[in-house]
């Protein structure tokens, strides 16, 4: 125990940095992913067939490929194609695309569940479609998906561990580095798991709170 505390003290900054990077990656990828998902979801719901179909195919493809494969493919392919991105950047790209596809599907579901009478009512008072979207449809859809959206945040925290495979210095990678030095596998993998658990539990709590707070009714 004493030795563990000693090692922990040595490792405190790398661990903190790793945790910070994990959070940063998660926040960045959920932000990009949500923006992608918004366009995707709107296209899937209201787009004409020539817009809807390609998005559909793209979304289904991305959802059918493991995140780790997306990450490795984006890491190796981009470098090979001469696009110079750092490991973090290519990882972020993969996570954003992954998140975007899922959000697109979630947002489509939410938009489709809004009764068509809402659009009729908005048209009746003379709103144009972009305005209907901005003032009537999206506010309802976003409220509805709030709990799922926050849950996606926890999913991304978990998925960000996969970036350790391409050498991004997030929490898991830092943990592995530390273990490589002191060989305390049990203690530090355990600690790492607990840290992830704590972060995700917080997100989960917040999601429950937000779910009640934003519920329509």
């Amino acid at each position: 125990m004493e030795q563990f505390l000693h090692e922990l003290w040595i490792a405190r900054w790398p661990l903190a940095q790793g945790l910070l990077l994990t959070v940063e990656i998660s926040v960045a990828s959920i932000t990009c992913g949500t923006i992608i998902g918004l366009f995707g979801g709107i296209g899937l719901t209201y787009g004409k067939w020539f817009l809807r179909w390609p998005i559909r195919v793209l979304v289904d493809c991305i959802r059918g490929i493991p995140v780790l494969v997306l990450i490795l493919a984006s890491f190796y392919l981009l470098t090979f194609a001469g696009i110079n991105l750092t490991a973090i950047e290519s990882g972020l790209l993969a996570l954003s695309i992954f998140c975007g596809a899922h959000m697109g599907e979630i947002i489509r579901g939410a938009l489709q569940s809004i009764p068509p009478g809402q659009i009729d009512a908005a048209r009746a008072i003379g709103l144009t479609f972009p305005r209907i979207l901005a003032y009537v449809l999206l506010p309802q859809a976003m409220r509805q998906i709030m709990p799922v959206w926050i849950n996606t945040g926890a999913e991304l925290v978990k998925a960000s561990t996969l970036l350790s495979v391409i050498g991004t210095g997030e929490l898991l990678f830092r943990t592995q580095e530390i273990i490589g030095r002191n060989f305390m596998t049990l203690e530090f993998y355990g600690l790492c798991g607990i840290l992830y658990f704590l972060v995700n539990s917080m997100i989960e709590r917040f999601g429950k709170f937000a779910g009640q707070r934003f519920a329509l009714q």
Partner: protein
Amino acid sequence: MAYSFRFGVIEANLDNFLQGLLLGLALAFAAILIGTLIGLLCAFATTAKSRAPSRLVGIYVSAIRNTPLLVIVLFVYFALPQLGIRLGKLESFIFSLAIYSGAYLTEVFRAGLAGVPKGVVDAGRAIGLNGLQRALYVIMPIMWRNCLPALGTTFISLFKDTSLAAVIAVPELTYQARKLNTETFRVAEAWATASLLYLSTCLLIAAGLRQLERRFPKF
């Protein structure tokens, strides 16, 4: 730099890829089998009158749900031997994926149980079925049907999760792709093939599921 796609590379390594794919499917299958047992046990435990099993199951589910699978996999493979639990690569990965899926399946089965109408269980009681008989002949059949779609999606996502086995050098599909990538630098071929195989397998399973759901219509 001009890159020309060489199908020959894929052809030469197709065997490896297909074996990797099958290994992934086998891993997912083994995991969901054990996971289903864990899930059923936990879900039925929460229906017990006493609160203790419910709380234990709750702790297990939230612990697993909030921990990344990769951390679980690494912990089981690298850290458990320190406690004297030494498993082979395959066994260790199956074990990880099984306890991981067990948590998700617990929730699936719980929802499925909640969807069994109380009156129908009463009817089973009324004709004199005992607890075990009610579970076997009334509750479970209805629960399975309720859970069928979620079981299917769980299997698909477990299959995709088997890609993580590459990290501990289990020679499944992702491992094969990475190997081809680093050995021959046929980057595009390697990842395109792997992606395509994952994708088509997922689509195939999903299509099979839709058939299955049609064969067993909702009550």
